């Protein structure tokens, strides 16, 4: 089974090969970044098939099921026949896990990436300064803590007047 689960060109480390494929699987709601950029792939194990650990960004994120399906399909298409997707809840996902590459791609796409680290639990009504992904101005204001998906807030740039999404820190 182990041999069957690994592709023919096995000069590459099997785990690395899987990571390379996963790096091509887009997030269904923000297709410019991959599931690896998003930091939701927690592990890849190549023993008795391919085991991929996925963690949800938000508890109720409706994309979770679709992501599971995308990952499985991508690996099956690449020739792996025994793919097991495992749900991982702990430790909980943090926006800190979005890669540098992911942050760059988000910004280029018009979504302001999360400010560096997660907010302190006791911090109540403060919010970090977010730069406009279009003009770079730091004169922005929050319109709503909630945006088009659970992971985004809605902002407006007071310099270029464009509204934009901000990927929340969590």
């Amino acid at each position, binding site marked *: 089974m182990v041999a069957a689960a690994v592709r023919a060109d096995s000069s590459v480390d099997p785990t690395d090969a899987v990571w390379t494929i996963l790096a091509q699987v887009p997030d269904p709601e923000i297709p410019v970044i991959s599931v690896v950029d998003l930091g939701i792939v927690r592990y890849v194990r190549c023993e008795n098939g391919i085991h991929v650990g996925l963690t*949800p960004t*938000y*508890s*109720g*994120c*409706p994309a979770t099921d679709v992501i599971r399906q995308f990952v499985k399909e991508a690996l099956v298409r690449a020739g792996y026949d025994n793919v097991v997707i495992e749900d991982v*809840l*702990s*430790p*909980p*996902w*943090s926006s800190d896990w979005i890669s540098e590459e992911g942050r760059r791609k988000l910004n280029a796409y018009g979504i302001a990436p999360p400010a560096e680290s997660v*907010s302190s*639990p006791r911090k*109540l*009504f403060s919010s970090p300064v977010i730069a406009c992904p279009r003009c770079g101005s730091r004169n922005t204001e929050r*319109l*709503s*803590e*909630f*945006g*088009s998906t*659970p992971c985004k807030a*809605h902002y407006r740039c007071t310099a270029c007047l464009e509204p934009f999404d901000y990927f*929340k820190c*969590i």
Partner: protein
Amino acid sequence: MSGADPALLHFVLRLADTSLVLAQRLGEWVGHAPALEEDLGLANISLDLLGQARFLLSYAGELEGRGRSEDELAFTRDGSDYFNHALVEQPNGDFGRTIVRQVLVDAFQLELYEALQASTDARLAEIAAKAIKETRYHFRYSAGWLIRLGDGTAESHARVQDALDDLWRFTREFFAADETDQAMAERGIAPSLTELAPRWLARVEEVLSEATLRRPPDVPYSWHGKRGEHTEHLGYLLAEMQFMHRAYPGAQW
């Protein structure tokens, strides 16, 4: 209650049902909120609560050991088998009333999940660690609105004060510990409710004072949602929520 650990199952269902029923109530706002941003805000909070309820219901299904899935638990139990706090089943009323209810529940969940992260039950600790991150911004949202409405116009102030005066009586149930709560506290699974109460009150009072609202007096209460004894509102909510599943059992998307 059945399963190998009926007290734990009962406790997990209380958490699950409180989140699920509140998610359903908030979902009623979709398409009806006063502004698009609030429509999205309430829907997003609803979605988080639904996600949390799903984790908890799946766990409850495992504890029960009868092979019931999260869907079966959500859609086939009658009101007397729901163990949510009676507060969350109260109708939405206007936006202000929804916000008052939300502040009271968010502050409770914030303290509860903060403590549950250290639960001796690993699964609950995991779910709490996930949920607390979301609960923090739920509270930021609801508290922010309560301050704006309370410290807003004479009309908005009067409306949220009325809602607070009406809903306050349901908060007593949060801290009325019964044998399930006591067992959970003794086993280190859940925090002691007596210890949670002052922390919840301090948090709520901070918001009320900034919102220029008056804390209503405590009154005796007679709702025991946690024990399956509900106000008349839960039945209507479940009838709507469960209709599809009961009409087409086992239907899948």
